[in-house]
Structures are given as structure tokens and as C-alpha cells.
């Protein structure tokens, strides 16, 4: 059950980071959250932290204008935290928008984290037997985190 709690945390984190709220509206976002909570996912501890996190994210959203850009959480203040935060995008595997990727690249530069992408990264690898990351992506940091990007994306 706690696994679902973690997934839910990641979902909320991703939801917030990509500002999907802007597309669905605050009511849609709140409704999604309510539905998720209604599923009674997560153990007591996970529910508690999820609720705390949700509250914070909603508060942060209320303080910002809706936009298509990423909203870097205020607790991200060094390279390690930044790379840790970007791993949510690798897991969810949903391409960011061009504007969001450009912003992520600019943030990486700000934190001194390298960004790389070969032609085959940007096209997606076609290997099989578990060896592929088959959707277009760039790499962030020494960890070479995969960031899914739109088809045709080029690094600025």
C-alpha cells in the first residue's frame, strides 16, 4: 500500500511541476486529488505526508500565475537537489513541452549541471531486450537522468 502512497506523491509532484493545474483548472486538480484520496491509497504515514505536500503545492499554486513553465520548488537550491527533482520526469516518461525543457536546461546551467543529447537520444533508441529508452530524450547531470522531450526537440 505504501507503494501507492509513493506513486501518489510522485504524481502530485509531477502534476505540480509540469503545471497541469493550468490545463485542468484548480477544480480539476482538486477533484483528481479527492478521487485519489478516495481510493484510500497509502498507509497512514504516507497519507499524512501526501496531504501535507498537497496543501503546500496548492498554496504555492495559488501564489503563482498559471503558465506553461515549470515551477521550480523553493527547496531546490543546489545541484544535488535539482537532479533529485528531475528524476520524477524520468519515471513518469511523459514528454515535457519545448518551453519546459528549455527552462529545465536553463536551470541545469544555473546549478552547474551538464545537459547532453546525441542525435539518437533526441530520436529515441530503437534497441530491444530492455536496452532502449525509446522515446526522444535528453540527459541531465552525471547521473544522466533521462528527460522525455517532444519529438523534434533540439537543445537551445
Amino acid at each position, binding site marked *: 500500500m505504501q507503494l501507492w502512497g*509513493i506513486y501518489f506523491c*510522485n504524481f502530485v*509532484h509531477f502534476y505540480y511541476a509540469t503545471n497541469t493545474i493550468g490545463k485542468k483548472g484548480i477544480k480539476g486538480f482538486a477533484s483528481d486529488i479527492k478521487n485519489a484520496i478516495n481510493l484510500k491509497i497509502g498507509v497512514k504515514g504516507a497519507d499524512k505526508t501526501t496531504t501535507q505536500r498537497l496543501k503546500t503545492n496548492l498554496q504555492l499554486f495559488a501564489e503563482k500565475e498559471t503558465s506553461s513553465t515549470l515551477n521550480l520548488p523553493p527547496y531546490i537550491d543546489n545541484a544535488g537537489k535539482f537532479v533529485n*527533482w528531475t528524476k520524477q520526469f524520468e519515471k513518469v516518461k511523459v514528454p515535457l513541452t519545448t518551453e519546459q525543457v528549455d527552462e529545465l536546461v536553463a536551470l541545469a546551467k544555473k546549478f552547474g549541471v551538464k545537459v547532453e543529447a546525441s542525435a539518437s537520444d533526441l530520436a529515441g533508441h530503437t534497441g530491444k531486450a530492455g536496452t532502449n529508452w525509446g522515446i526522444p530524450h535528453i540527459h541531465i547531470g552525471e547521473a544522466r537522468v533521462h528527460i522525455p522531450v517532444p519529438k523534434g526537440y533540439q537543445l537551445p
Partner: protein
Amino acid sequence: MKFRILGDSIITSNSAYKGLYREEPIYIEDDELYPFWDWYATEAGDGGYISDIEKAKKLVEMYAKKGIYYEIIRIEEQEISTKNCFLGIDICTKGGYSLLASRLENSNTTKTEMDGIFELIKVYFQAKLNEHSLFAKNEDADLFLKVINEIQQLRPGIIEEDIFKKYYLYKQE
């Protein structure tokens, strides 16, 4: 010594996988957890490795109290003699992206002229993986790595162009 703090497999379809391509401690809005995540994310930095085992143990303990479970994995590039539990050999980039995380299952439906070779790799090497979806034997890991390196040279870009290496993984008690 190098360690990583790891949780569930990132590839959810293969929850048995105990290699390096797994969840790391994530940020949770919680006053008790924050100092531990703050230490971890800063210490792990860009690469993901930590060395302070006592702090790592404390982090694992604190997250477990909240129902989120991680374990500490010791990573070696050579086989070592240790009392810690040997999990197996992963084939990864230095950042932890593993070729074994999906247990060599296909997720890519794009047809290529290399499909037969990849099918052969899957059938042959899947049988060599242990219960943690890792190689148990050095010779199997060596042969897999050799095949991967040759494919990288034969068809650059068909798989990640990173340098893949063997990592011996031990569960730190």
C-alpha cells in the same frame, strides 16, 4: 566505499529488480524528514553516491517510520569478500541506468533489422538472471557486456551511447 540509498524499481513491471535503477529518497513535505532528504540530495549530488553510512541508516529509519522503505546498497567494481548479502551484478552506467531493470523484456515496438539479435539476447541472458534480475555469475555478466559493446559499435545509437560497466551490489546491513 560507495553506497546508494535505493527503494522500489523504477520499472514497475519488474518489482523484483534489486539493481541500481531504483527510486532514491524523494522530497516529502515533512519537517522530520526534510533534514535527511536535504543531507541526502546534497551529499549524493549529481552522481547519486553517498559515503556516510551512519547518516544513511538514520535516513532509512526515518523514512520507514513514514511507511516509505529504502535500503542501503554497497557498490563495488570488483568482487569483494564481505559479510554483506551479495545481490548480484548489474550492468549500468555510472549514473545507475541499468540494462537489466526490465529483465530484458521489450517495450519498444519499432521494427529494426536487429530484432532477431535482440530476441536472442533476451532468450539467452534472461535465463542467466537471478531472483533480483541481476547476473549471479561473472562470466555471464562479462559476455552480456561484450555483446552490448559490440552492438554499440555495430549500430551506434541503437541503444544508449553511455559506457556500461559491471557493478557488484551488496546489501548493507
